[in-house]
């Protein structure tokens, strides 16, 4: 049955785990946003020697479970801090999704925009930086937001490599105090409280960008 005292004791533990969860999400998503863009751009490289291997590697990462990748990285890269490793793996895993999102955004920029850039003699770099990417990113902002939320909800996977994120902490508390119900309920509640308003925000953003 629900034990109020256990819940009260679990709350600070769970919240300290939430700090780690948040940190992992923010850092991981930063990795995903940057690496995803890199993958998208390299995947469009005119050199097939770049585009093909990058594309193949990205599909491989995308189609294998993140949990397996976490274990593999843990074994293959010993000595790295668990949180850092987790952030990198989760970030790179999501980067392979985001690269597809970027790709769709880039493809949605009308041909006329590229042609206007040529007519103005804009250098390639400037075309990407000032014209194509700003429009592409704007189009996919809601998708990026949705991926951020789903990444947030997948951070518990990091517990398999002993990152002390929220679910890991809830689990530890539950086992030492035999209060799984309280600690996991609190963790679930925190997830809900954090992601629900965020998803509303994303939906509003979507509506605003739709017209």
């Amino acid at each position, binding site marked *: 049955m629900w034990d109020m005292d256990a819940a009260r004791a679990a709350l600070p533990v769970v919240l300290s785990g939430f700090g780690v969860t948040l940190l992992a999400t923010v850092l991981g998503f930063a990795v995903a946003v940057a690496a995803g863009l890199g993958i998208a751009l390299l995947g469009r490289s005119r050199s097939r020697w770049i585009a093909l291997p990058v594309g193949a590697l990205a599909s491989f990462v995308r189609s294998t479970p993140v949990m397996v990748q976490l274990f593999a990285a843990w074994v293959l890269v010993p000595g790295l801090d668990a949180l850092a490793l987790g952030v990198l793996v989760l970030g790179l895993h999501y980067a392979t999704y985001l690269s597809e999102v970027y790709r769709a955004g880039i493809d949605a920029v009308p041909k006329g925009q590229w042609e*206007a850039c040529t007519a103005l*003699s804009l250098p390639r770099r400037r075309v990407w930086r*000032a014209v194509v990417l*700003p*429009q592409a990113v704007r189009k996919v902002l809601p998708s990026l937001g949705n991926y951020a939320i789903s990444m947030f909800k997948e951070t518990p996977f990091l517990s398999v490599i002993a990152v002390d994120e929220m679910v890991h902490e809830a689990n530890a508390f539950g086992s030492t105090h035999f209060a799984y119900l309280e600690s996991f309920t609190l963790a679930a509640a925190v997830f809900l409280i954090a992601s629900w308003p965020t998803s509303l925000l994303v939906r509003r953003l979507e509506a605003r960008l739709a017209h």
Partner: protein
Amino acid sequence: MPIETVPGPEKVRFDRVTKRFGDQTVLDGLDLAVAPGERVTLIGPSGSGKTTILRLLMTLERVTDGVVHVDGEPFSHMPSGPGGKLVPADERYLAPRRRRVGMVFQQFNLFPHLSVLANVTEAPRHVLGLDADEAAARARDLLGLVGLADKEDAHPTRLSGGQQQRVAIARALAMRPELLLLDEVTSALDPELVAEVLDVLRDVAAGTDITMLCVTHEMAFARDVSDRLLMFDRGRVLESGPPGKLLDAPEHERTREFLRSIR
């Protein structure tokens, strides 16, 4: 030794230019010359290759065969190796030459995420290397010329089609092109907005010595600004001449037919 390219009197020369898309031949060994400062209007039925000619000059398409020259220099091609043999131009060769050419599109193609001012200053700043103040001053002059001085902070999507096209004209002029390409720049506009754009172009034609190549169905405008009209048919020049002659006394039945069809 690279071949000497004598700067000829011609701004543009098409030398037996052929353009194919797949197995469709759009331009078939076309010869064409335009003098510096000349205003030439291309007319002709749909699919006759008018847009293709402008797109070749803007380097949006590549020739299949033949050579395009600008200012007496190869443009579609570049001399290469000891014999100066012509090979397709690479980006390094094209970049400085393309700057002399500007284009205004039927669909405006303004940058929707940038303000009107930023649309016009983008290329002067990042291609010509003007600083922000110089570029803004140049842009404001041009926005004044096209009658949009009060719209510099607006976003293009908030403007009417006629206003957008006038911004696009200012944007092209901001690069100080020597050759300006206009491809049916009023065709996408509501009829009541056509005049404001054509008036701006009349001013540009009267106030500059820019060479202009223009595709339009606005014959009154063509008559006013053109030195010469070229009637195209199936990728060839069917007939050419001063607007008075070509519009009022065309030699070919197909020209008469075409002129009737657009009236």
